[in-house]
């Protein structure tokens, strides 16, 4: 190749967005497309990919694995739930776990995943580790999809300052042919299919060098293995768990109950507020007051009729306001949270003051007007 021509390229090549972001975006697109529930990132390093994935609403289990515990710990706190996650628990459940260990070892905690990503991982493996890697990932973990990305050595001539490898810790960097033959062989061996792609387009005129990062996406050809098969596998844990975060979720009865109680009382308050301000308008008018002398009883009589008719209307009796649970249940937010009326009743039992027959939320308004 003409030296000057090459020089020119080494000046220019700069990926936008940066290559690491493109790799992450690639994984995210894949997640969006296949909606895996359980995702593991092998060689998760500073957890940046995991951090991004925690926002993907289809994922319920996220796991990270790295050989270096320190690098994981540095930013692992970013994977913890935020205060807002507690304030507004999400519908989905999410557990994030970080393990310290090697991809050359099998550990049962890695079983049952839908997607396993190995982003810029394999080139860091020693020869002996690389040899065991396919058996661990494809043979043992056996997820439905595996993503493996690695540098394409053919692209290196376009990168400035790359002497031997792109990173001092790389044990090798493969050409497209080398990677593809390894991938095809692995896929064949473990009954997977593989598709090749990449991120980081080569400059025009240099297309034949291929993507800067080459990616293989492997799909398992056989259906999900049953539990029985898994139990035959060695069940001894060799990874060390360094981090675990369980996100608050409405799937958890405790959070659901809190959410329902809050919503029920809040909804009831709104209804009560409307009812009371209507009453106030009515009683505030001094002329009307003198003419009609509307007493509490008369007013509740009027409402009482409605109750008979519809059994849904809130009403006042003496110092108490009653808001039927049926009415509250008809509010979309409450409805969505509980699903069924029975569930609603069950969740608020003993937590919300109800009328004697348990059909309505009851408020005492005796002292309220004094202070407001």
């Amino acid at each position, binding site marked *: 190749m003409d030296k000057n021509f090459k020089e020119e390229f080494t000046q220019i090549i700069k990926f936008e967005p940066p290559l690491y972001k493109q790799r992450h975006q690639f994984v995210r697109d894949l997640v969006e497309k296949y909606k895996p529930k359980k995702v593991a990132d092998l060689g998760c390093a500073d957890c940046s990919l995991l951090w991004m994935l925690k926002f993907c609403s289809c994922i319920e289990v996220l796991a990270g694995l790295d050989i270096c515990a320190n690098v994981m710990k540095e930013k692992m706190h970013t994977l913890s739930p*935020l205060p*807002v996650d*507690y*304030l507004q628990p999400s519908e989905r459940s999410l557990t994030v776990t970080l393990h310290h260990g090697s991809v050359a070892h099998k550990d049962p905690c890695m079983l049952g995943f839908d997607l396993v990503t190995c982003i810029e991982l394999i080139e860091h493996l020693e020869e002996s580790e690389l040899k065991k890697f396919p058996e661990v990932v494809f043979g043992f973990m056996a997820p439905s999809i595996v993503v493996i990305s690695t540098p394409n050595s053919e692209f290196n001539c376009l990168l400035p300052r790359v002497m031997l490898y792109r990173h001092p*810790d790389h044990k090798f960097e493969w050409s497209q042919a080398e990677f593809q033959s390894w991938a095809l062989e692995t896929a064949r061996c473990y009954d997977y299919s593989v598709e090749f792609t990449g991120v980081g387009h080569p400059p025009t005129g240099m297309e034949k060098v291929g993507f800067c990062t080459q990616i293989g996406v492997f799909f398992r050809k056989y259906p999900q293995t049953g539990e029985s098969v898994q139990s035959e596998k060695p069940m001894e844990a060799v990874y060390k768990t360094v981090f675990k975060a369980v996100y608050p979720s409405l799937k958890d009865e405790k959070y659901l109950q809190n959410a329902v109680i809050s919503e029920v009382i809040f909804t009831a308050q709104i209804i009560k507020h409307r009812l009371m301000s209507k009453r106030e308008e009515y009683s505030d008018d001094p002329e009307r007051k003198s003419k009609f002398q509307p007493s509490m009883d008369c007013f509740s009589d009027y409402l009482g009729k409605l109750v008979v008719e519809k059994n849904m209307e809130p009403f006042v009796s003496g110092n108490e306001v009653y808001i039927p649970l049926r009415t509250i249940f008809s509010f979309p937010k409450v409805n969505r949270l509980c699903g069924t009326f029975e569930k609603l009743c069950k969740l608020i039992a003993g937590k919300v003051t109800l009328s004697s027959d348990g059909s309505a939320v009851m408020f005492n308004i005796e002292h*309220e007007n004094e202070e407001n």
Partner: protein
Amino acid sequence: MTGRARARGRPPRQTLPPAAVGDAPPQQLQHPQQLQQQLQQLHGPPAQSEEPGGHGHLRACEAPLQERRPEGLQVSSGLQDLSLRDRGGRRRDFHDLGVNTRQAMVHVQESKTGFSGKMIKLTTNHFRLTSRPQWALYQYHVGYSPEMEARRLRSALLFQHEETIGKTHAFDGSILFLPKKLENKVTELFSRTRNGEDVKITVTLTNELPPTSPTCLQFYNIIFRRLLKMLNLQQIGRNYYNPSDPVIIPNHRLMVWLGFTSSILQYEENIMLCTDVSHKVLRGETVLDTMHSLHSQVGEERFRDACAKELIGLIVLTKYNNRTYRIDDIDWDNNPKSTFRKSDGSEMSFVEYYKKQYNIEISDWMQPVLISQMKRKRGNIQGSVALIPELCSLTGLTDKMRSDFNMMKDLAIHTRLPPEQRQRELGRLLNYIQKDDNVQKELRNWGLSFDNKSVSFTGRIVQGEKIFQSGAMFDYNPQFADWTKETRGVPLIRSMPMDSWLLIYTRRNYDVANTLLQSLFKVTPSMGIHMNRPSMIEVDDRTEAYLRVLQQRVTTDINIVFCILSSSRKDKYDAIKKYLCTDCPIPSQCVLARTLSKPQTIMTVATKIALQMNCKMGGELWSVEIPLKQVMIVGIDCYHDTVSGKQSIAGFVASLNQSVTRWFSRCVVQSRGQELVDGIKTCLQTALRNWSKWNKSLPSRIFVYRDGVGDGQLNTLVNYEVPQFLDCLKSIGTDYSPRLTVIVVKKRVGARFFAEIGGGLRNPPPGTVVDTVVTRPEWYDFFVVSQTVKNGCVAPTHYNVIYDTSQLKPDHVQRLTYKLCHMYYNWSGIIRVPAPCQYAHKLAFLVGQSIHREPNLMLSDRLYYL
């Protein structure tokens, strides 16, 4: 408004009904979220968050935070993510470390303790930090040859030698801290990178830090906060909270998290952890939810105003990162579809940004965006951040919520812990720390531990004051710190006649007005107040109607204007106050009709109103003995206005007479960025002129009680404000050199004291003075508990004498301070701060909330703002 100003501006919650709109007796309620509101720290960035910025004109978007993230300090094992600069690396000197004011005051070098009063056994919320004997932190510089760029690589290379440097270490890439000393001053280590390069690492001892050095203190604080994190507590603002066991108050859609404040400091003899229970009020709704409910409440027309009023100044949490932001503005011209400029110069809409960055779908595309000003520069970027209401959760309470009696009552049940319970909660925290293996291991490795029993010591209860009123002398029951009953029906020191006054009311409140009048006629004679029948004026219940009446009927011979308001609508109150404080300087009294509507309390209310009006017209109520002669006492407090034009207001109050019963009051209105102190200087000059007019000489002693000083501002005060005071005094005359004492008053302190009485813990009685053990060696400081509380724990007030040429003994300064807490005329009892501070606060609050400019100086010789 700061939370603190808010706290003080709240209407009273005493058994007595409120006498006037917005009038707060200074007896303090406990703040539900103690130190939270005012000093919201902007936190360090979580991993990849990139802030969406405002729109071009607001600012360029921040550079990706990743790149600017300060290099954290790596700490061994459990504290791996510890950075010596703490989160985000923007540590402020909250504890005013390194401001050593005591060294300049010779007379307190030996001792700064008082002696009077009787002893009382106290415990506190301070826990001793203990370290191994001869403990030190060793600081090393680590050099690489050849030079290594990447921090991660530098750490990896260094930690290949863990057998030499040990498992416990803190390393930020060049500075290494170790709990033990290496054998040699300079240690050379050799490592090989994974691609075979040989590297020489030189570890050189640069510093041996004693346990009391500022770096060490900082280090302890970080370690402790990490411990809290290891206990799975969540950081919000500066404190850590337990999210797993919230108190839910569904009636108001509130959630309260229990948490802890913590600070480790060098106290008088020991390094101690001061920890207190803190409650974080969180709200289970987003800003958008709040906007929706506001819209349904106030309708389209007043919607924007209502939003501004309700939301500006609140602190929000976002759905996607762990930072808190203060809402400074609402941008109605933009919405989530608007674009902002990213750091790389490209434009992106908020919708796209949140989708791309956090996979968050914004559902409402019509909502406005919230603007939050960045308090400090981040890197070289300064400006504002735009936030989407839908993605923000509210924290804390709004003014409206604070004035909701029922809500505050419901909250108080959970937040006002009585002494025993408070100590129990703290005990639990210390217990967790003792029990958690990881935490213990980390502490052991650093050679540190905490006592699990708080320190005990003796304080003093100084003797109660005698209250003098027109020749009579009273004692008060120290248990209640109140002399309402004792002085009832006794003539005032100076009663102002109400010969000509106006009583303005709406038609609906005609009966109320008459009842009030009858009651006033009953209570005023015994006070010595001569009262004529007022001109009774009926008005429509509209602001303009009130104003028209004022314009037509108020003349200079009117003593006072009394308005009965039918609702607590602020605009009416503001308009009345503004007119009568600026255009037409006549004292005024506004009272809610509701306050007067209860027959069973009307006499008490009328009594209180009569006293208040008397003060507003220049009357004097009672006095205590002030043994110092020729003394002028000054109180200063600040109010930061958030709603209109970002003003800051300093209230300035100075005594005018020997008995400290008359005050000169002025205020300084300053727009953002200006220094308040210049205005304060002018105030001091006029105050001195007025003092000399009253006393035919200049004061020989001046005491300045300076409130409203934020954490970390002490240095500015010492180096800038005090010299300005001195300058000002010099400018009066060459031969004039009065003795000056400047005392910084702080109400929001972490320290709590509990009296050990009868085997249990109680609140210490008023008059309790603490000037040992938990004070700071580099300051001339003390605590006074002057008020009583009905519920919860009493909060001591901290006094820090930063400048003192009075030559008075500490005991006398303490006594004077306590005496002044008796002199606030809006409350016949002892309050939390010296009266001049409370007056200054009231003045600044009124101006900041309602008037927004300097009131007419004609009023400056009376307490018109009470």
